[in-house]
Protein backbone atom coordinates (compact mmCIF):
# COMPACT_ATOMS: atom_id res chain seq x y z
CA UNK A 1 0.00 0.00 0.00
CA UNK A 2 1.45 3.32 -1.08
CA UNK A 3 1.01 6.43 1.03
CA UNK A 4 1.65 10.00 -0.03
CA UNK A 5 4.03 12.18 1.99
CA UNK A 6 4.62 15.89 1.56
CA UNK A 7 8.13 17.29 1.90
CA UNK A 8 8.11 19.78 4.77
CA UNK A 9 11.84 20.31 5.25
CA UNK A 10 15.19 19.59 3.60
CA UNK A 11 18.51 19.63 5.39
CA UNK A 12 21.99 18.95 4.03
CA UNK A 13 23.94 16.67 6.36
CA UNK A 14 27.14 16.57 4.30
CA UNK A 15 28.11 17.63 0.76
CA UNK A 16 26.45 14.47 -0.56
CA UNK A 17 23.72 13.55 1.93
CA UNK A 18 20.40 15.26 2.52
CA UNK A 19 17.70 14.67 5.09
CA UNK A 20 14.15 14.85 3.75
CA UNK A 21 11.37 15.41 6.28
CA UNK A 22 7.98 14.17 5.13
CA UNK A 23 4.59 14.65 6.63
CA UNK A 24 2.49 11.55 6.05
CA UNK A 25 -1.13 12.05 7.21
CA UNK A 26 -1.96 8.33 7.41
CA UNK A 27 1.39 7.26 8.89
CA UNK A 28 0.72 4.40 11.35
CA UNK A 29 3.90 5.01 13.39
CA UNK A 30 7.22 3.19 13.21
CA UNK A 31 9.94 1.60 15.31
CA UNK A 32 13.59 2.69 15.18
CA UNK A 33 15.47 0.70 12.54
CA UNK A 34 12.63 0.29 10.06
CA UNK A 35 12.77 1.51 6.48
CA UNK A 36 10.45 2.77 3.78
CA UNK A 37 10.30 2.19 0.05
CA UNK A 38 10.13 5.35 -2.02
CA UNK A 39 8.56 5.23 -5.49
CA UNK A 40 9.22 7.81 -8.16
CA UNK A 41 7.08 7.73 -11.26
CA UNK A 42 7.97 9.57 -14.47
CA UNK A 43 5.34 11.17 -16.69
CA UNK A 44 5.61 8.23 -19.13
CA UNK A 45 4.69 5.80 -16.35
CA UNK A 46 8.22 4.48 -15.74
CA UNK A 47 8.76 4.01 -12.03
CA UNK A 48 11.70 3.25 -9.76
CA UNK A 49 11.54 2.04 -6.16
CA UNK A 50 14.32 2.39 -3.60
CA UNK A 51 14.51 1.59 0.11
CA UNK A 52 15.67 4.17 2.63
CA UNK A 53 16.09 3.75 6.35
CA UNK A 54 14.06 6.02 8.58
CA UNK A 55 16.30 8.45 10.51
CA UNK A 56 13.70 9.93 12.85
CA UNK A 57 12.51 8.56 16.16
CA UNK A 58 8.89 7.47 16.41
CA UNK A 59 6.85 10.65 16.93
CA UNK A 60 3.21 11.64 17.24
CA UNK A 61 3.46 14.26 14.46
CA UNK A 62 3.31 11.69 11.65
CA UNK A 63 6.66 12.90 10.40
CA UNK A 64 9.17 10.64 8.72
CA UNK A 65 12.74 11.65 8.01
CA UNK A 66 14.96 9.81 5.57
CA UNK A 67 18.61 10.66 4.96
CA UNK A 68 19.70 9.99 1.41
CA UNK A 69 23.29 9.67 0.21
CA UNK A 70 23.73 10.81 -3.36
CA UNK A 71 25.19 8.13 -5.61
CA UNK A 72 26.90 9.71 -8.66
CA UNK A 73 25.36 7.23 -11.10
CA UNK A 74 22.15 6.78 -9.16
CA UNK A 75 18.77 6.82 -10.80
CA UNK A 76 16.84 8.07 -7.77
CA UNK A 77 19.23 9.59 -5.23
CA UNK A 78 20.37 12.57 -7.39
CA UNK A 79 16.73 13.60 -7.75
CA UNK A 80 16.01 13.20 -4.04
CA UNK A 81 19.12 15.09 -2.94
CA UNK A 82 19.22 17.84 -5.58
CA UNK A 83 15.86 18.48 -7.16
CA UNK A 84 13.19 17.60 -4.63
CA UNK A 85 11.70 20.76 -3.07
CA UNK A 86 9.61 21.59 -0.02
CA UNK A 87 5.96 21.05 -0.92
CA UNK A 88 6.70 18.19 -3.34
CA UNK A 89 5.00 14.88 -2.76
CA UNK A 90 6.55 11.43 -2.62
CA UNK A 91 4.99 7.97 -2.63
CA UNK A 92 6.01 5.80 0.32
CA UNK A 93 5.47 2.20 1.34
CA UNK A 94 6.06 1.28 4.95
CA UNK A 95 7.14 1.24 7.68
CA UNK A 96 8.86 -2.02 6.71
CA UNK A 97 10.66 -4.68 8.75
CA UNK A 98 10.38 -5.88 12.33
CA UNK A 99 13.77 -7.58 12.63
CA UNK A 100 16.42 -4.86 12.49
CA UNK A 101 14.69 -2.70 15.11
CA UNK A 102 15.38 -1.38 18.60
CA UNK A 103 12.32 -1.23 20.84
CA UNK A 104 12.18 1.12 23.81
CA UNK A 105 11.30 -1.82 26.09
CA UNK A 106 14.71 -3.41 25.52
CA UNK A 107 16.89 -3.22 28.64
CA UNK A 108 20.19 -4.83 27.56
CA UNK A 109 23.29 -2.87 26.53
CA UNK A 110 23.30 -1.89 22.87
CA UNK A 111 26.22 -1.93 20.46
CA UNK A 112 25.78 -0.04 17.21
CA UNK A 113 28.23 -0.38 14.33
CA UNK A 114 27.76 1.79 11.26
CA UNK A 115 29.60 1.83 7.96
CA UNK A 116 29.02 5.05 5.97
CA UNK A 117 25.34 5.81 5.47
CA UNK A 118 24.53 2.68 7.48
CA UNK A 119 24.42 5.25 10.27
CA UNK A 120 20.86 6.25 9.38
CA UNK A 121 18.79 3.49 11.08
CA UNK A 122 21.19 3.52 14.03
CA UNK A 123 20.58 7.26 14.42
CA UNK A 124 16.87 6.50 14.67
CA UNK A 125 17.71 4.12 17.53
CA UNK A 126 19.81 6.76 19.35
CA UNK A 127 17.02 9.32 18.88
CA UNK A 128 14.38 6.83 19.99
CA UNK A 129 16.39 6.06 23.13
CA UNK A 130 16.55 9.78 23.98
CA UNK A 131 12.91 10.47 23.12
CA UNK A 132 11.67 7.60 25.28
CA UNK A 133 13.81 8.51 28.29
CA UNK A 134 15.52 5.12 28.16
CA UNK A 135 18.78 4.93 30.13
CA UNK A 136 20.05 1.77 28.45
CA UNK A 137 23.77 2.11 27.70
CA UNK A 138 24.47 2.61 23.97
CA UNK A 139 27.81 2.43 22.29
CA UNK A 140 28.44 3.43 18.67
CA UNK A 141 31.36 2.56 16.45
CA UNK A 142 31.05 4.59 13.25
CA UNK A 143 33.35 3.80 10.35
CA UNK A 144 33.42 6.59 7.82
CA UNK A 145 35.55 7.67 4.85
CA UNK A 146 36.67 11.00 6.28
CA UNK A 147 35.57 13.53 8.92
CA UNK A 148 33.49 15.50 6.38
CA UNK A 149 31.38 12.44 5.62
CA UNK A 150 30.08 11.96 9.17
CA UNK A 151 26.31 12.11 9.22
CA UNK A 152 24.56 13.83 12.16
CA UNK A 153 27.95 14.88 13.51
CA UNK A 154 26.87 17.79 15.73
CA UNK A 155 23.90 15.92 17.10
CA UNK A 156 26.02 12.87 17.92
CA UNK A 157 28.57 15.03 19.75
CA UNK A 158 25.84 16.82 21.64
CA UNK A 159 24.06 13.65 22.65
CA UNK A 160 27.22 11.92 23.81
CA UNK A 161 28.31 15.00 25.81
CA UNK A 162 24.94 15.39 27.49
CA UNK A 163 24.46 11.77 28.21
CA UNK A 164 27.47 9.64 28.94
CA UNK A 165 25.54 6.48 28.35
CA UNK A 166 25.90 7.04 24.61
CA UNK A 167 29.57 6.37 23.86
CA UNK A 168 30.98 7.35 20.47
CA UNK A 169 33.97 6.02 18.59
CA UNK A 170 34.89 6.98 15.03
CA UNK A 171 37.06 5.02 12.67
CA UNK A 172 38.25 6.58 9.41
CA UNK A 173 38.90 4.58 6.28
CA UNK A 174 40.52 7.17 3.98
CA UNK A 175 41.41 10.39 5.80
CA UNK A 176 41.68 10.80 9.57
CA UNK A 177 41.85 14.11 11.47
CA UNK A 178 45.33 15.37 12.35
CA UNK A 179 46.87 13.52 15.31
CA UNK A 180 44.20 10.83 15.21
CA UNK A 181 45.67 7.82 17.04
CA UNK A 182 44.69 5.21 14.46
CA UNK A 183 45.86 5.47 10.85
CA UNK A 184 43.07 5.43 8.25
CA UNK A 185 42.03 1.93 7.30
CA UNK A 186 39.31 -0.66 7.48
CA UNK A 187 37.99 -1.83 10.79
CA UNK A 188 39.91 -4.73 12.28
CA UNK A 189 39.69 -7.22 15.12
CA UNK A 190 41.66 -5.00 17.53
CA UNK A 191 39.35 -2.04 16.94
CA UNK A 192 36.20 -4.10 17.39
CA UNK A 193 37.59 -5.57 20.62
CA UNK A 194 38.49 -2.12 21.93
CA UNK A 195 35.48 -0.07 20.81
CA UNK A 196 32.60 -2.45 21.55
CA UNK A 197 31.00 -3.79 24.74
CA UNK A 198 32.60 -6.89 26.21
CA UNK A 199 30.56 -9.88 25.07
CA UNK A 200 30.02 -10.97 28.69
CA UNK A 201 27.63 -8.02 29.05
CA UNK A 202 25.41 -9.75 26.51
CA UNK A 203 24.79 -6.71 24.30
CA UNK A 204 22.51 -6.79 21.30
CA UNK A 205 24.57 -5.61 18.33
CA UNK A 206 23.18 -3.80 15.30
CA UNK A 207 25.44 -3.60 12.27
CA UNK A 208 24.46 -1.62 9.18
CA UNK A 209 26.52 -0.76 6.12
CA UNK A 210 27.63 -2.04 2.74
CA UNK A 211 27.70 -5.84 2.53
CA UNK A 212 31.49 -6.38 2.82
CA UNK A 213 31.60 -4.06 5.86
CA UNK A 214 28.74 -5.87 7.54
CA UNK A 215 30.31 -9.29 6.95
CA UNK A 216 33.64 -8.17 8.41
CA UNK A 217 32.14 -6.40 11.42
CA UNK A 218 29.74 -9.24 12.25
CA UNK A 219 32.61 -11.73 11.94
CA UNK A 220 34.76 -9.79 14.41
CA UNK A 221 31.85 -9.40 16.84
CA UNK A 222 31.34 -13.11 16.69
CA UNK A 223 35.08 -13.75 17.23
CA UNK A 224 34.89 -11.54 20.34
CA UNK A 225 32.36 -13.98 21.80
CA UNK A 226 29.06 -12.34 20.87
CA UNK A 227 26.33 -14.86 20.15
CA UNK A 228 25.15 -14.89 16.55
CA UNK A 229 21.51 -14.45 17.56
CA UNK A 230 22.51 -11.19 19.29
CA UNK A 231 24.08 -9.75 16.14
CA UNK A 232 21.52 -8.16 13.85
CA UNK A 233 22.62 -6.96 10.47
CA UNK A 234 21.29 -4.84 7.65
CA UNK A 235 23.15 -4.63 4.39
CA UNK A 236 22.81 -2.17 1.58
CA UNK A 237 24.32 -1.77 -1.83
CA UNK A 238 24.23 0.95 -4.45
CA UNK A 239 22.57 -1.18 -7.11
CA UNK A 240 19.95 -2.93 -5.03
CA UNK A 241 17.12 -1.42 -3.16
CA UNK A 242 18.84 -0.30 0.02
CA UNK A 243 20.28 3.18 -0.24
Amino acid sequence: MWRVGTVVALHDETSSARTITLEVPDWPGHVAGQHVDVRLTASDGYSAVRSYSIASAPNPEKRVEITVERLPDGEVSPYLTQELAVGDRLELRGPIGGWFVWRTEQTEAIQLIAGGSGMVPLMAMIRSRAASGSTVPFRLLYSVREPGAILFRDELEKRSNQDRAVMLAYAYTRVAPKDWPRPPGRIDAALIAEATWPSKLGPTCYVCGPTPFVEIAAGFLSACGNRSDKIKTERFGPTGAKK
Partner: protein
Amino acid sequence: MSSPMDYLDGNAAAGELSRLFVMDITTAEGKCAYCGATKRFAEAHLYMEGPGIVARCCVCEHVLLRFVNGRQRAFLDLRGMSYLCFDTA
Protein backbone atom coordinates in the same frame (compact mmCIF):
# COMPACT_ATOMS: atom_id res chain seq x y z
CA MET B 1 27.88 -14.44 -12.40
CA SER B 2 27.48 -12.98 -8.98
CA SER B 3 30.54 -11.70 -7.18
CA PRO B 4 30.73 -12.95 -3.59
CA MET B 5 29.59 -9.74 -1.87
CA ASP B 6 26.79 -8.45 -4.09
CA TYR B 7 23.92 -9.63 -1.97
CA LEU B 8 21.71 -7.71 0.41
CA ASP B 9 19.50 -9.34 3.00
CA GLY B 10 15.88 -10.29 3.52
CA ASN B 11 15.07 -6.82 4.88
CA ALA B 12 15.46 -5.40 1.39
CA ALA B 13 12.72 -7.62 -0.06
CA ALA B 14 10.20 -6.94 2.68
CA GLY B 15 8.55 -3.98 0.95
CA GLU B 16 7.93 -5.87 -2.28
CA LEU B 17 6.79 -9.01 -0.46
CA SER B 18 4.39 -6.96 1.67
CA ARG B 19 2.18 -6.91 -1.41
CA LEU B 20 1.62 -10.63 -0.87
CA PHE B 21 2.14 -11.20 2.86
CA VAL B 22 -0.09 -9.50 5.39
CA MET B 23 2.44 -10.14 8.16
CA ASP B 24 6.03 -8.97 8.38
CA ILE B 25 8.20 -11.53 6.65
CA THR B 26 11.56 -10.30 8.03
CA THR B 27 10.87 -11.76 11.49
CA ALA B 28 9.37 -15.00 10.14
CA GLU B 29 11.54 -18.07 10.66
CA GLY B 30 12.17 -20.13 7.58
CA LYS B 31 13.60 -23.62 7.46
CA CYS B 32 15.96 -24.27 4.56
CA ALA B 33 14.74 -27.32 2.67
CA TYR B 34 18.34 -28.25 1.80
CA CYS B 35 20.48 -27.85 4.93
CA GLY B 36 17.75 -27.60 7.54
CA ALA B 37 19.00 -24.31 9.02
CA THR B 38 16.23 -22.30 10.65
CA LYS B 39 16.81 -18.56 10.31
CA ARG B 40 14.83 -15.35 10.23
CA PHE B 41 13.99 -14.26 6.71
CA ALA B 42 15.85 -10.99 7.44
CA GLU B 43 19.06 -13.03 7.56
CA ALA B 44 18.67 -14.54 4.09
CA HIS B 45 21.07 -13.38 1.39
CA LEU B 46 19.14 -11.45 -1.19
CA TYR B 47 19.96 -10.97 -4.85
CA MET B 48 18.04 -8.23 -6.64
CA GLU B 49 20.12 -7.59 -9.73
CA GLY B 50 18.11 -9.82 -12.01
CA PRO B 51 14.54 -9.43 -13.22
CA GLY B 52 13.27 -10.89 -9.95
CA ILE B 53 14.25 -11.37 -6.34
CA VAL B 54 16.18 -14.43 -5.19
CA ALA B 55 16.70 -15.18 -1.49
CA ARG B 56 19.32 -17.72 -0.52
CA CYS B 57 20.04 -19.51 2.74
CA CYS B 58 22.72 -17.62 4.71
CA VAL B 59 24.23 -20.93 5.79
CA CYS B 60 24.32 -23.08 2.63
CA GLU B 61 23.40 -20.56 -0.13
CA HIS B 62 20.65 -22.72 -1.58
CA VAL B 63 17.69 -20.85 -3.06
CA LEU B 64 14.89 -20.26 -0.52
CA LEU B 65 12.57 -17.99 -2.43
CA ARG B 66 12.13 -16.59 -5.91
CA PHE B 67 9.79 -13.77 -6.73
CA VAL B 68 9.15 -12.36 -10.18
CA ASN B 69 6.78 -9.56 -10.81
CA GLY B 70 5.36 -9.25 -14.29
CA ARG B 71 3.01 -6.65 -15.72
CA GLN B 72 -0.18 -8.38 -14.66
CA ARG B 73 1.05 -11.36 -12.66
CA ALA B 74 3.52 -12.19 -9.90
CA PHE B 75 5.22 -15.56 -9.42
CA LEU B 76 6.33 -16.78 -6.01
CA ASP B 77 8.42 -19.93 -5.63
CA LEU B 78 8.89 -21.03 -2.02
CA ARG B 79 9.98 -24.63 -2.50
CA GLY B 80 13.41 -23.91 -1.01
CA MET B 81 11.83 -23.62 2.41
CA SER B 82 10.09 -26.48 4.17
CA TYR B 83 8.18 -23.92 6.21
CA LEU B 84 7.93 -20.25 7.17
CA CYS B 85 6.86 -19.64 10.76
CA PHE B 86 5.19 -16.32 11.58
CA ASP B 87 4.88 -14.92 15.08
CA THR B 88 1.18 -14.23 15.54
CA ALA B 89 1.36 -13.02 19.16
